[in-house]
């Protein structure tokens, strides 16, 4: 099989940071498809109304599997910011910058911790607005019969709002 990162000197599959996002291996593949369209989405239970994040295949409140997709805010406010200088995993360059983000009052998800991308040291201050940031990650091969095909992947974080 071609494209296995470990066999091409990249990293071991067990050390892969990101989920396998394709339909063949993940029932919430639509979340990642929506990311590609700039949407930050999750699941809402049609039976009891509970909005859950991360998205699910059952409602954690009432165990109904009758769920619908709803949009979450793509902008939030930085409450606390952190820069990590030591012990940074090799895929990242120090500092790793992350933030505890608060979403607007009407958001079903109140807070989220995210890495900040496209962001220099000292660029973001507490109270600043950040927005959803979607980026490509290494595609991953999957078996398809006797062949292997590459599946593209994306992931998300947040980034300073461009002024």
């Amino acid at each position, binding site marked *: 099989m071609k494209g296995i990162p470990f066999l091409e000197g990249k990293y071991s599959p067990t050390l892969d940071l990101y989920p396998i996002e394709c339909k063949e291996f993940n029932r919430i593949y639509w979340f990642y498809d929506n990311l590609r369209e700039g949407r930050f989405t999750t699941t809402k239970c049609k039976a009891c109304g509970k909005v859950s994040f991360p998205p699910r295949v059952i409602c954690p409140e009432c165990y109904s599997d009758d769920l619908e997709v709803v949009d979450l805010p793509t902008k939030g406010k930085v409450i606390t910011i952190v*820069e990590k*200088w030591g012990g940074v995993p090799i895929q990242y360059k120090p500092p790793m910058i*992350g933030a505890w983000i608060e979403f607007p009052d009407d958001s079903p998800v109140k*807070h989220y*911790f995210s890495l900040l991308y496209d962001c220099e040291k000292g660029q973001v201050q507490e109270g600043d607005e950040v927005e959803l940031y979607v980026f490509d990650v290494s595609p991953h091969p999957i078996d398809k019969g006797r062949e292997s095909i590459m599946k593209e992947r994306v992931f998300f974080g947040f980034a300073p709002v461009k002024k």
Partner: protein
Amino acid sequence: MGNFNACVIAGGQCKWGVREASYVDLIQEAAKACVDDLPGLKPSNIDGLIFASTFVGRRSTQVNTAPVVAERVGLKPTSICTRVDVLCAGGSTGILLAQGLVESGMAEVVMVLGSEKLYTPERWQIQYDEMSAVDHEWDGPNGIGPPPVWFSVQAQEHMKTYGTTKEQLAAVSITNYKHGLMNPKGHFQKELTMKDIEEAPVIAAPLGLFDCCPLTDGAAAMVIAREDIAKDLTDRPLVYLRGGAQVSIHSAGANWPGKTMGDWPHLKLAAEKAYERSGLTPKDIDVAQTHDCFSISEIIEVEELGFCEKGEGGPFCEAGEITIGGKIPINTDGGLISSGHPFGATGIRMGTEIFKQLQGRAANQVEGAKFGLTHNLSGGNVEHTIVTYGLEPKK
């Protein structure tokens, strides 16, 4: 099935640190230290094994671990032979499970053995492995995996909300290093000064190098026996397991339960449950081992465990209330910060220290200690585990 009492009768650990040894070497050293702790105790007295380890599957490429461990340490289990994986709380979880098995009559004498071999030829891998010890699909890729990131936010929020200072964080590290001077099997035996702390590299502000526990190779073991069998095996005071609790949330990044990150209501709930089940209150606890993975952790833990008022953890620790002679001596063998933190073994080291404290044979002895408590947090602070110990059983 019965309704028995469960007692700790032996405990021990191997030398912790960066070890030139494999995980099966470490578990043998720890099992020997544990059995040697009680003259006359033999592997053949033990009918059950609970092995606690999280990274053995990734770092040592061994899954289905318990039968291998049993064979290496000469046990022939007939009641239970299994592995638990609760990261930093694996050892304490094993102790709670052993208590339940012994009290129910399912087992008679159980060894709880924990081990991690974190330093392997490619030592950088552990930084990646930690991404999988939190919610791998959500929290890991978003940076919660390396613990200092997450605990820096918690420290900053506690400072903003309650006025906690860097000097108060330092007081925790200095105290625990001081306690660790008397623990030759811990990772470090070093007197830590404020100058050391001020000159140390920043890991994730406000946390510097000495605010963080090290990554450590190590193993520890404890033997828990049914009360009547314990009386046959030991002449020392019996140390009873009185009950505990484990409270878990999911996805720390999106579902943090506190008003701020400096509030840990899931620990408060675990403490309430543990006190209720053990028939104890915070004032009854004479000595405790709490999960000082970072200096800020111990400050928040003394608050949520009820040893001081919420928001007073910083001044409480700085005033010396956590050392011998203080209101509640904590981490009396050095804690994670000085002794190190081989995840699955940590709760067993803590339990063994409480066991020795209550029997009056600890290195930093709390005089007259009758009741003790251990606490672990695990997996990006999504879970809290508490075990209580006493010189008398719960009535």
